[in-house]
């Protein structure tokens, strides 16, 4: 079967693209074989790709922004982030437990997956390449303050740093500190400040734009 008979609607690299690694042809051959065997269907793959490309940190940011403005919701988020996501109509993903942790003036959390790449993908989108890199997976544990320094996060010596190691069954979402000067902002305006990296714990939320 040629690439042209391939009937899903996601775009493909041009055929014969010399920049593609051999793994690309392998992935497509694997898809063909699994469909021929009836293990999966084109429709399964298409739906899954649609889901993957629809995920972004905007969902996680909605959770955090709501928690910043609603103390009761914050309590529910910290008690059970899966349920809190469902409450807002968000998809928390398939992992059985999603734990939200709160950064405060005294405690800073950052998240790693030393064994691979577990991550709250449903709420944040696909993990960034550095999150999956062996250097981050190693150094987030051995020297997390230096790692934070590389990411531009300055922590005072008196701030306790907690590094959370994800597993296949427990994914973590960091609730960053609400920046000063955001008191009058709406929930949507707040959500716009909440970046992916701040929910991994390797950045602070964006500073609000100066007024006037």
């Amino acid at each position, binding site marked *: 079967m040629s690439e042209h008979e391939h009937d899903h609607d996601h775009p493909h690299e041009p055929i014969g693209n010399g920049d593609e690694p051999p*793994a690309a042809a392998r992935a497509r051959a694997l898809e063909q074989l699994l469909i021929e065997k009836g293990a999966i269907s084109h429709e399964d793959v298409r*739906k899954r790709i649609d889901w993957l490309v629809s995920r972004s940190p905007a969902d996680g940011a909605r959770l955090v922004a709501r928690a910043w403005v609603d103390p009761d919701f914050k309590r529910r988020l910290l008690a059970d982030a899966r349920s809190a996501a469902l409450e807002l109509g968000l998809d928390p993903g398939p992992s059985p437990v999603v734990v939200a942790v709160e950064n405060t003036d005294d405690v800073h959390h950052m998240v790693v997956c030393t064994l691979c790449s577990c991550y709250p993908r449903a709420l944040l989108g696909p993990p960034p*390449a550095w999150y999956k890199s062996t250097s981050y997976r190693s150094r987030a544990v051995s020297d997390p303050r230096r790692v934070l320094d590389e990411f531009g996060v300055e922590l005072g010596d008196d701030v306790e740093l907690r590094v959370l190691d994800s597993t296949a069954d427990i994914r973590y979402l960091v609730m960053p500190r609400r920046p000063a000067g955001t008191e009058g902002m709406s929930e949507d305006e707040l959500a716009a400040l909440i970046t992916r990296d701040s929910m991994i714990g390797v950045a602070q939320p964006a500073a609000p734009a100066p007024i006037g």
Partner: protein
Amino acid sequence: MERSVHDRGGRPDDAPIDRSEHELADWELLTDALVGALGARGLMNVDEMRRGIESMPPDQYERASYYERWLFAIETNMTEKGVLAPDELDARVGG
């Protein structure tokens, strides 16, 4: 006890972290979708997937990119379950 290749926490590593953003290539997205589709059909769960990655020979693991490890895990599991014949994928790619 010697640690397995995938167990990276605290392993001596002075390499700076490459923070450049990388948009998933088409085949990477496809590979991710294959894992999700197999999961939805009950043909490979997250633990089987992990065990597949972790069973990769260490030198191959070190050389492989992230989604190459996923491909290896799919192929390993599907061959073990008899969905794919041994070397069937190699034959298809070669042919």
